[in-house]
Structure formats: structure tokens, C-alpha cells
């Protein structure tokens, strides 16, 4: 079967005599990879770079005639990020946490991330405007402000991090369940989640709400994760996903403290298998030295207390907060080994690959360059056993992995790394090779008909590490793991059109003057700020 490409799109056919041909016989052809959640740009990533000179010292790439130089293992510089993704056959990536105040910075870095199309999600779960309107119960008004915010920060989806907890962290507290009250605003995470989900539906956004749960990284938090999923059950319609729980591994801890920590993957998988309104991504732990960075300030503080490592914590005015702590996941640590196990258990116990996606929550649980390793573990029981033999023995005894025989096939992997993620993001032209799709293709050097991935997992790993070809927008950008040309990717953003847009009144400008360090005039990101702008128009119901 041939795939014809013209003008950056996949078409029915082209003139075979004149077209450039790529011989992919005996190889596996997939759509370009899509990553739904990876912190690759923005102020927190950049602060992570500043915090970790030793990370750059370990890993660097020299400049070549075609590529630029770069440094960094867990927080690589922007150009290197783009090259490394392209080498693995990825062509679309999403930066999941952008404090709206730092939108300009984020877009500057995204402009400098080559080879891939990208988007970014503004953090809206703790924005004062949202909290105020939800408190008053004015969903439509809230929707109009969210629409204004998404369009003016050139964002792609609603990101919610530890709803309410970040606002509480501003006064030195955190919330421990989804029914705790947020100080001053007197609403609960449940109301924030439900409110923003309604907003999401009113605005017809392509992606669901993207949620980092409360209580993340604490033993016993699988109950919070289940509560979060349950609390929006009735709002879901037509079996469509309504909520995306991100890096679910960190939200699937069972047990009362770190010593009794167990995996809650079974309970979560059971719930997901019986419900269709949730999608997840793994947040798979890799045993390596990495940098954790989230907008979840209280969680990062806990992590700093646990590890004793250096840290950064930051309050972003009226919007959110953030924290960064370098972290090393060790095989011999009971907790880290259990975490490693939870990620894989989730991926294997959830039957439908359209509901769980492969991520490492780069760089929180490991750098994205370890994706081929995860594919190896998912496809081969033997690979899992080899890894299991090297982890903490107590964790090994408690892990569910030895009892799981499931080995994923190439189709399941293609769904978890591309098609499913593109579908969840509502990207109609990505994640498939049908006519009309963007010509983003990844070709890997292995024959899916002859190779036995469960035994030859090392070959599979190697093939996924270095794509034989990566085609981006119809151009061959990578050949045999080498960058052939430096191309710019587009920045996708939502142009949300509401019938009655937010008026920038003097009242709003007064608030800007009062609450923000930035004047209103300097706040929105204008379209000419994006080097390659790709607006997606969305017609809202308000």
C-alpha cells in the first residue's frame, strides 16, 4: 500500500513518475507521534534549566551543519527538544502548563522548538476570575472569560492543577479532598471541576478539561482520583470523554503512609474499564535523575521536604503557583519501584488503549527520550521481568506486574502514542494516515509481520529510538535518526468565538492594575507573536 503526499497533506494519489519516493517496505509506518503532556517550554521549564547546571553538563549535543547545539538531559534546551522528538518520530507535542501571565515567554520558547507542531494549555483552575464567577454560579460569564483567556494567551485547552489547592497554598495551606473549602472563595474543588467542565462544553473546546488531581503524590490518593472522575460522571454525554486525568500514576497511590504504599492501579483501571467519560495518561516513572516541575506548589514543597534537594517555589499572582525540585528515581527505593510498577499496571490493566496514553509527564517522571523503553515494557513481559528483577525486592513482591500476562501489539502502541492522543485532543488531522490528514509520518525500521516484540524487545526499543524516517508536513526531516533539515512547526491555538465577548471595561483594567504586575495592554499575546500560527476556530454556545 502506498501513501501519497502533496502540499503537506495526505492525498488519494500523486503522479508517481514525478514524486519523490520513500521505500518503506519491510518497515512499520505510523502517523507522527503525538504527546499530550510534556513540559517543554515556559517559565517553569526555563527556571528548571537555570536550577540545574549539572543536568546540562552531563548531556550536550554539538552543532552540526543542519542543527543547532544544545544541552540538557531532563530539561533540554528548546532546539534539542525538537530534534530529539523528531528523531523518535514525534511530530506533535503539547505543553501542558502555562501560567497565563507567562504566556509570552512560553510562546517564545515554543517558537524556538523546531520540527514539531505544538500547543499549550493555560492554567485556569485557580484563576481568581474563574473562582469568583463559579462562586457566584455564573457559568456563562465564566465561559466568556475563559474564552477570552484562551484566545488571548493562545492556548489550546483548560488545564486544572490541584483545583483550589494552589489558591490555598497562597495562604500556606493545601486541600486534602475534593470537598474541602478554598479559603476566601468558599468553593470546593468539586465545584471548580464541574464548573470548568460545563465551561468546556459551552465553549465546544476540542480537548476535555485536563486535570492534575488534588492530593497528588500522597499515599491513599487513588480515592481522590476516583472522586475526581466520579464527580463529573453525570456531565458526560454520548460516551464521549469529558475529563482527562493526567499523569495518573502519581494519583494512584494506595496505603496510609509511605511504608505501606501500594498500587491503586487496579481500582482505577476497574473504574475506567466500566466508564467511558475519562481518558488518562500514564506518567510512567523511569529510574533516572530528572527534574520535577509542576504548577502544584504544595506538592513540590512536600517533595523538597522528602528529598532534601534544592527547590524553587513561585506564586504567579492571581493565577497559579509552581515548584521545581530535582529528583532521582532509584530502583532500590521501595516507593520509587512501586511508582514504576503503577504506571505500567495502569497501562496494562486498562483494556481500551483509546483511554490511556503513554507519557512520562516529561520531565517529572522521566525524560521523554525514554519512551522507547516504556514501549519495550508494554510490549514484552520478558522486558518487564528483566526490569522487575532489578528493583527493590519488597516492591517486587507487592507489584501486580508478575500477574499480568498482557502484551500490547503494535496497533495498541500506535493508539497509545498517536491516534488516541490525537483523538483526545480533538486534532482531526493528526494521529492517522487517512486522506486529508497532515503529512506527519514516522517510519521505523522493523517488520511488524516478522518481528516478535515480546522476545525481541531490544530491537523494538532500538527501532523506536531512531526513526528510519520522520516526515513532517510532507518533508523528510529525519533519516535514520539524523536530522536532515531544520523545519519550523506550527503553534496551534484556539480562536474561541463567543457571540458576546468579554468587554474590556475600566473595571477589568482596574483589576489588572490592582492584582497583576502587568498592565492589561501588555497582557494578551497577539498573533504576530507566533512565528507559525495555526488558529483553530471554535464556535462557542455562549
Amino acid at each position, binding site marked *: 500500500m502506498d501513501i501519497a503526499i502533496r502540499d503537506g497533506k495526505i492525498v488519494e494519489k500523486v503522479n508517481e513518475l514525478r514524486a519523490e519516493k520513500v521505500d518503506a517496505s519491510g518497515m512499520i509506518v505510523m502517523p507522527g507521534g503525538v504527546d499530550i503532556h510534556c513540559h517543554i517550554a515556559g517559565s517553569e521549564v526555563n527556571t528548571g534549566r537555570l*536550577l*540545574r*547546571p*549539572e543536568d546540562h*553538563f552531563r548531556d550536550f549535543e554539538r552543532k552540526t551543519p543542519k542543527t543547532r547545539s544544545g544541552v540538557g538531559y531532563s530539561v533540554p534546551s528548546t532546539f534539542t527538544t525538537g530534534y530529539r522528538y523528531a528523531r523518535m518520530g514525534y511530530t506533535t507535542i503539547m505543553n501542558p502548563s502555562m501560567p497565563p501571565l507567562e504566556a509570552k515567554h512560553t510562546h517564545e520558547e515554543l517558537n524556538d522548538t523546531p520540527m514539531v507542531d505544538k500547543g499549550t494549555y493555560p492554567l485556569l483552575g485557580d484563576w481568581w476570575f474563574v473562582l469568583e464567577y463559579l462562586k457566584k454560579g455564573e457559568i456563562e460569564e465564566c465561559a466568556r472569560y475563559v474564552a477570552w483567556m484562551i484566545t488571548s494567551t493562545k492556548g489550546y485547552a483548560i488545564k486544572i492543577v490541584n483545583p483550589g489547592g494552589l489558591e490555598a497554598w497562597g495562604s500556606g495551606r493545601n486541600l486534602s479532598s475534593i470537598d474541602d473549602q478554598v479559603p476566601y472563595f468558599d468553593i470546593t474543588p468539586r465545584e471548580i471541576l464541574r464548573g470548568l467542565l460545563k465551561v468546556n462544553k459551552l465553549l465546544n473546546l476540542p480537548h476535555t478539561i485536563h486535570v492534575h488531581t488534588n492530593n497528588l503524590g500522597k499515599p491513599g490518593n487513588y480515592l481522590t482520583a476516583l472522586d475526581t472522575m466520579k464527580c463529573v460522571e453525570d456531565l458526560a454525554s454520548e460516551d464521549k470523554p469529558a475529563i482527562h486525568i493526567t499523569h495518573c500514576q502519581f494519583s494512584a497511590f494506595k496505603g496510609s503512609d509511605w511504608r505501606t504504599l501500594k498500587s491503586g492501579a487496579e481500582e482505577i483501571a476497574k473504574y475506567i474499564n466500566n466508564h467511558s467519560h475519562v481518558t488518562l495518561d500514564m506518567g510512567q516513572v523511569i529510574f533516572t535523575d530528572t527534574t520535577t516541575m509542576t504548577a502544584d506548589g504544595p506538592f513540590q514543597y512536600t517533595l523538597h521536604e522528602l528529598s532534601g*534537594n*534544592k527547590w524553587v517555589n513561585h506564586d504567579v499572582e492571581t493565577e497559579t503557583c509552581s515548584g521545581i525540585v530535582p529528583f532521582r528515581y532509584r530502583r532500590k527505593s521501595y516507593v520509587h519501584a512501586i511508582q514504576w510498577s503503577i504506571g505500567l499496571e495502569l497501562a496494562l490493566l486498562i483494556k481500551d488503549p483509546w483511554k490511556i496514553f503513554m507519557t512520562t509527564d516529561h520531565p517529572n517522571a522521566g525524560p521523554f527520550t525514554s519512551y522507547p523503553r516504556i514501549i519495550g515494557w508494554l510490549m514484552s513481559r520478558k522486558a518487564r521481568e528483566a526490569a522487575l528483577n532489578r528493583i527493590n525486592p519488597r516492591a517486587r513482591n507487592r507489584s501486580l506486574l508478575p500477574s499480568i500476562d498482557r502484551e500490547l501489539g503494535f496497533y495498541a502502541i500506535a493508539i497509545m502514542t498517536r491516534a488516541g492522543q490525537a483523538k483526545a485532543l480533538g486534532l482531526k488531522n493528526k494521529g492517522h494516515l487517512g486522506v486529508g490528514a497532515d503529512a506527519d509520518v514516522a517510519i521505523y525500521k522493523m517488520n511488524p509481520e516478522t518481528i516478535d516484540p515480546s522476545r525481541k524487545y531490544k530491537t523494538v526499543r532500538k527501532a523506536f529510538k531512531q526513526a528510519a524516517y520522520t516526515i513532517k508536513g510532507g518533508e523528510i526531516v529525519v533519516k535514520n535518526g539524523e536530522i536532515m533539515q531544520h523545519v519550523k512547526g506550527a503553534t496551534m491555538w484556539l480562536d474561541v468565538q463567543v457571540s458576546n465577548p468579554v468587554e474590556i471595561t475600566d473595571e477589568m483594567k482596574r483589576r489588572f492594575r490592582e492584582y497583576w504586575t502587568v498592565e492589561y495592554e501588555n497582557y494578551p499575546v497577539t498573533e504576530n507573536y507566533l512565528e507559525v500560527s495555526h488558529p483553530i476556530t471554535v464556535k462557542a454556545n455562549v
Partner: protein
Amino acid sequence: MFKMMNLYPLRKFTFPVIAECVSPDVFQDKNQKEIEDLEILEGNKQKRLGELFKVEETRKEQETIITVYGDVSKVRRIGAYMTDGEIIIQGDAGMHLGEEMKGGKITVHGNVAGWAGSTMKGGTIEIHGNTSHYLGAPYRGSNRGMRGGKIIVYGNVGNEAGTYMRKGLIKIYGNAGQFAGLRMRSGTIFVQGDCEERAGACMTGGKIVVGGFLESVLPTFTIESVKKKVKIEEKIVKGPFYLFLGDLTENGKGRLYVLKEKNPQLTNYEKFL
């Protein structure tokens, strides 16, 4: 194959030279021609070792010994990652000498720039002159300090010697700068001469012995007792020494020994015993 190699710098270097390849592990099993073809960076230019050094081979029945004659104070990372053999430098050496070395020996008959023995894991470095800051300390930002081996300095040492040290021994026969043993977790630092202020700041374990004048002990250290002698690697050093425990800001259990005889200003502490 055992051999002895002599290196002579052909000129005075004005740009930093990165010479990871000057290491017994690399030189082993290579003939003179191959050694001359080794890649080396001068500034941002890729060069061959033979363009910067005259290489001379003298066979001998012993393990690989590399001797460098002349001033190589601009040459960095000599002996990095080495596991065996010996390097002798008859002159000054540059930064990052013996970085992350695992075994073997480096002797310098001259002064050495900063970061000598950075993150080393084993082996010995002997410096007969002075050395600069960050002796045995990890690279900026990293907390993986020295994990073994021995560094002996006969001259003076700059600031922050033995930062984040976890194991091993640093012996300084001259004076030490500020922050000796900053954040050290284990291991031993011995300073025979004077030590500038803030010795053992944020230490959580290990041992620092000061045989000279130490102007003041950090307020986060408490006096424990007066010891008659201290043992440093089989050898007994006679005291008496004040023993301080700290650093209390880090809940540390590090031990700081200060010679009583040279430090009359610390007699105040005796009333707390």
C-alpha cells in the same frame, strides 16, 4: 602492553585545551602514531594531540605512566575518568584534573587550578603545590560529591574544598580557604595549617580536623568534648582537640575537631562542657 609516555607542550597555550584523552586508559594499547592522532579541543577548534604536544615513547616494564613536562595550566580535564595507571605532571595543571577518576594516581609537581579531583570515586591525587577552589567538589548545582579516593595537597587550598563529600580523604598540609567541607555527608578532611571561616557549614556527617588556627566556629555547632587524639586513616594525630558537632541547621552529626593549642579564642566554649 606496558609503556611510558612523555608529553611536552609545543607552545604556551592561550586558549583552554580540553584534554580528556590524556589518560592511561586511552593511551593503553595505542602506539605513538595513534596517540598523536587523538582528538583534542583547543578553544573551539578540533585539533590532534600531536599538534599541541610532542609525544615521546619510552618502553618500560610497568603500568602506563604518562609524564607531562612543562606548563599545562591551560589544559583541562587531564586524567578525567581514568581507572588505572599513573600521570605525573612536572609543572602546573589546569582545571578539572582527574575529574571522576576511579583509580590510578596523579602527581603534580606544581600548582593546580580549580575543581581538582571533582566527583572522584577512587585513586589518588597528589599535589605538591597549591590548588584553587572546589577541590574534590562536584560540578555546579550537583550534589554528588567525592565518593572515594584520596587527595593530598602539600600547599594551600582555595574555598569550598570537599563540598558534598561522601567518602574518601582530603589531606591539606597548607592552609584551607572558607567553607571547607561545605555540606559534606561523610569522609574526612584534614587541614594541617590554618583554616578560614565557616568550616563545615551545613555538614551532616563526616569529619573535619583543623590542626591550625580557625578564627571562629559557626554558631550552629555545639561543643561536645575535648579529645586527646584523632585518628586519620590509621594514623594518630595528637591533640588535644575541641570536638564540635553540627551543623544543627541541617540536623547534622558532623564532627569538627579544632586543635586546642593553636586556638585560644575558643576557650570560652570550655565552660559549656
